[in-house]
């Protein structure tokens, strides 16, 4: 009885019309409420705020498109492009860097895999800010790197801090685990015998990679790419700390709108647009790469 009720709880969430009276629906009510309050309500609040008169805090005023007009009239598109470009670049760089490591974790390292995994996980226990400031101290003029080079060779190199490439570096550094682990999972899901079969059938290493390994590991790679892309679009500290604000990503514009500018409606409109852009991009990718079809499940 209880088991049956629990099983019916899931469809109840999707189609609340019919099983309103069922035990399952009542059981799932607290979770549904929590979801509604904790997840949907803030989202609705943000969307509602984006249609409020600029710089006002009154949700119940006449709706207006003024905030969106402001965004399209001004140069906010630059921030959007920067954010998307940085996120895309981060994904590409991470895919290239992580593939060999993921391959090693899935296939080569064997019992050393756990240790390597731990090495990649450990930094996650330290705040992102602290780690990035650590890099500043390492890379700053007279810091560990440049200071060390100067002391050893007498050559004074120009600092590379506070430049756009450093932002990508920071993002690659911070989001590496989010690409590495789904990718490792994806690669470990490729049966060893299937790659051996391809090799046995005459395929070169490159052909095995292209024809078999890559397509079969694709679900993991796509998940890693989506994860890092979404995180990358939401990145802000890297541009602030390592980039010295040499670039203003869209998240920074949103932060300014909510703080110094005290223009919550504008910030909300920027947020809504960002969610829209990212949502559409993610949907396109998911449509293009049907994970089930890749795996031959359909």
């Amino acid at each position: 009885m209880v088991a049956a009720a629990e099983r019916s709880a899931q469809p109840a969430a999707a189609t609340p019309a019919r099983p309103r009276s069922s035990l399952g629906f009542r059981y799932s009510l607290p979770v549904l409420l929590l979801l509604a309050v904790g997840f949907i309500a803030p989202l609705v609040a943000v969307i509602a705020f984006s249609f409020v008169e600029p710089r006002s805090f009154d949700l119940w005023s006449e709706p207006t498109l003024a905030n969106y007009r402001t965004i399209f009239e001004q140069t906010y598109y630059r921030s959007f492009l920067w954010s998307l470009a940085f996120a895309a670049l981060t994904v590409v760089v991470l895919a290239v860097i992580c593939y060999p490591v993921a391959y090693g974790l899935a296939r080569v390292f064997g019992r050393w895999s756990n240790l390597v995994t731990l090495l990649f996980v450990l930094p996650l226990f330290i705040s992102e800010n602290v780690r990035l400031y650590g890099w500043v101290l390492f890379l700053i003029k007279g810091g560990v790197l440049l200071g060390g080079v100067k002391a050893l060779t007498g050559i004074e190199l120009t600092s590379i801090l506070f430049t756009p490439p450093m932002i990508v570096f920071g993002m690659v550094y911070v989001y590496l685990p989010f690409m590495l682990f789904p990718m490792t999972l994806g690669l470990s899901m490729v049966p060893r015998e299937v790659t051996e079969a391809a090799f046995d059938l005459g395929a070169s290493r490159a052909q095995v990679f292209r024809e078999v390994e890559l397509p079969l590991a694709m679900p993991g790679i796509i998940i890693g790419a989506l994860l890092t892309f979404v995180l990358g679009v939401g990145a802000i500290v890297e541009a602030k700390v390592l980039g010295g604000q040499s670039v203003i990503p869209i998240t920074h514009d949103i932060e300014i709108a909510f703080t110094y500018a005290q223009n919550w409606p504008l910030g909300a409109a920027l947020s809504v647009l960002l969610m829209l852009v990212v949502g559409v991009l993610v949907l396109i990718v998911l449509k293009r790469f049907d994970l089930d079809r890749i795996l031959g499940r359909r």
Partner: protein
Amino acid sequence: MVSGRFPILELRGLTKRFGELAAVDAVDLDILEGEFFTIVGPSGSGKTTVLRMLAGMESPSSGDILLKGERINDVPANRRPTCMVFQSLALFPHRTVGQNIEFALKIRGDAAASRRARAFELMDLLRLPRSYYKRGVTQISGGERQRVALARAFAYDPQILFFDEPLSAIDYKLRKTLEKELKDIHRETGKTFVYITHSLEEAMVMSDRIGVMRAGRLVQVGTPHEIYTEPRDKFVSEFMGEVNVIDVVADADGLLFAEAFGTRLTAPAHRRGFQKGHLVIRPESLRFLERPEQAENRFEGTLYNEYVLGSRIQYQVRVGEHVFAVERLRQHAFGGRLDDRVLIGWNAVDSILVEE
């Protein structure tokens, strides 16, 4: 025995070590062109490692592999004219039946039309409906997948096919059908097949010759008949299926003495100078006797239990601490009841003497 053919594959002192352990230990073997050769052995006997070395997926620690007289130790799998059919089949799950079969041809750079023609040819040979060409390999049945794996392996016309227990995960009835089919395909194609399995029964059905492996060593090589009738040792004889084994030592007058039973037994023809070994009697060679003189050797015991094994019935007879298995065809079922005193026996020619 397939005679008059030259060896296509020669294994010379082939050894593979994983750390301290020699998984394959100095194996010497000739595999003849066009034969169906099966390596049989329990798991861990090293048979898979031998096959993987032959296919080029593992490199030998020492020893040589010669293909038509040329050393191929260092030739990688993708450049050997051999192909493996895996236990898991290892089909490409993201590709269609057609794409799977044509994989090697596409890699080789064949044109689409000729690839397709070859795929259809193989599908016909393996009795796969042509309409399956565009289906995903995950949408067809286990037996059909088996045939796709075969077709894929045959596609580029390799000289030797390796089979890594491809039938072990399949239910009994389908396995029996596929065993016969495989043997038919072997006849039709005339290719050299090297097959590994842990089931001697499977090996018997299909093979021209069988090699039995144990703990990394090749214990005996011969035709199924030779292996069956002249097992080289107790291991091989036991590996053939359920057998009755009596430990014996040489006695006077060419007789044997079975210490455990305190009796002398008439021995089959054996080597002069035989000291100590095992007398092997197959369950179907043991008979129930009405009178002692009906067989050269005999024991008296108690009918302990009986089992129906399809077309045969197996009886267990207790003689002291030992249990003997006696088998009869079902239509000749033994009339005795459980706990009856019975006499069992056999003639010396129906037994096999293996040396220790």
